[in-house]
């Protein structure tokens, strides 16, 4: 059996590795932010990434939004019906989506779809000596490769979350109004009166921007630090999904507590 001293040493090593890893992550994040001038000087590089990243995720996010909207419509109706307030279904669907489900589910899907693509792309660029080649060509790969992808992810995320929420509301409307037969006037007017631009929509947008920053950084860092082998790249993509998703859920709790506590 392992001696307690060795176990403590191993624990210490793991803690030190974690702290070093966190330091490296923050350094990379700082490096990306410090070199972000290129995003303004060459906006074409960023818009290309918004297009790629948006394209990667748009279909899955729209379809997921529709089904989440369907489920919200059904579950909301069953619950609200008990209290005879099924007209509030529109409000329930819209608030659930804009405050929580839109940003969170979009970020989780984004980590699984666009995040893994970013990680694999950077990891394979590293394995194929492309990043080394760039450095030898006197081009900083953080500035040229990571910065446009970072801002692409940060811009794409709130747009995708908006698409998710919008399609989700349509899903709720299909189930609530078309299938169950709730009054459409009540459905829309309750939503219009109850959803606040600042409290609900703006907070949702802030959440999705924060999640966009977090997931994109995790994805880029995983690719950047991936071992330049097929196994290394596959491990890095897994790390993107696991760390990205956990970070989103953790940040969601913190942000919700900050935004809606008062």
């Amino acid at each position, binding site marked *: 059996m392992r001696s307690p001293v060795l176990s403590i040493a191993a624990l210490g090593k793991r803690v030190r590795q974690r702290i070093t890893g966190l330091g490296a992550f923050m350094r990379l994040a700082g490096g990306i932010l410090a070199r972000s001038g290129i995003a303004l000087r060459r906006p074409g590089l960023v818009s290309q990434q918004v297009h790629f990243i948006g394209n990667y995720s748009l279909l899955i996010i729209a379809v997921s939004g529709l089904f989440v909207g369907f489920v919200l419509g059904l579950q909301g109706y069953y619950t609200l019906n008990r209290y005879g307030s099924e007209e509030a279904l529109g409000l329930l669907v819209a608030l659930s989506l804009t405050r929580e489900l839109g940003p969170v589910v979009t970020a989780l899907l984004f980590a699984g779809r666009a995040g893994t693509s970013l990680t694999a792309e950077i990891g394979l660029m590293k394995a194929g000596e*492309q990043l080394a080649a760039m450095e030898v060509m006197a*081009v900083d790969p953080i500035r040229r490769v990571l910065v446009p992808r970072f801002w692409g992810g940060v811009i794409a995320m709130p747009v995708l979350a908006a698409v998710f929420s919008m399609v989700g509301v349509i899903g709720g409307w299909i189930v609530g109004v078309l299938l169950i037969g709730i009054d459409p006037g009540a459905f829309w007017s309750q939503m219009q009166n109850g959803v606040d631009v600042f409290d609900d929509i703006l907070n949702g947008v802030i959440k999705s921007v924060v999640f966009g920053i977090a997931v994109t950084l995790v994805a880029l860092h995983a690719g950047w630090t991936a071992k330049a082998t097929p196994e290394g790249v596959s491990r890095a993509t897994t790390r993107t999904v696991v760390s990205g998703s956990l970070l989103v859920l953790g940040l969601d709790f913190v942000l919700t507590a900050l935004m809606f506590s008062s």
Partner: protein
Amino acid sequence: MNSHNANQPIVKFTNVALGYGDFTVLRDIDLEVRPGQVVTMMGGSGSGKTTLLRAATGQITAQKGRIEVFGSDIAHVSGERLRELRQRMGVLFQQGALFTDLNVFENVAFPLREHTRVSENQITERVLDKLEAVGLRAAAHLNISEISGGMARRVALARAVVLEPELLLYDEPFAGLDPISLGITAQLIRNLTDRLRCASILITHDVAESFAIADQVYMVGQGRLIASGTPQALSASQDAYVRQFLDGQPDGPIAFNYPITPAFTKWLEQHTGRS
């Protein structure tokens, strides 16, 4: 851009030792490359040829000695100065290292877009001109996944020369090329060097093609510089190392087998003990 004194060597290694961590790959290396010269570095697989190239580009620093590129000690330059020096170099990587998210045209245009402010028309003209030189003008629109390994190497060559640099480093430029491309590529390297008066360092183990175009040949092996001289001098050499390498003989001072290390012996003991 600083112009280099035409008489001074563009690359100069003085008593250099190179390696990774505690492990030394090459020691006691002295070499010079002057403008207008094609210099070939030869040696068997794993002899440290690519390590030499990495040292010349500043990707690794010397464990000992001094490496000067364009007159600057590359181990003691600032990041900004290193970038300036690198803008005056063109490097052809062993695997091509083409950017897979860009097509053939954009790969060759990449250094122009990053380092110059020339118009789009000029970029198109210069890129197509370089692609023409490697016989791939009509492949400009293709994605990197659509071209063969040999074509990728030629695209990488076009990209390495598009800025018409003062120093060109080629890592295995002939590997994977068919006989026609091989002859044309060798001639292209010679012509470019003559026309631009640049210095070219060629890393290869292709004896025939490189001897046909080189001014000077350095041969590395056994962790050091084995021989150097003009292709004619080396062809006439009776040195056992040189003869074994040039004639491709299995027996001689250069061992074919990887040397037995303590780590291997330990692994073998564990491995045989397990079975």
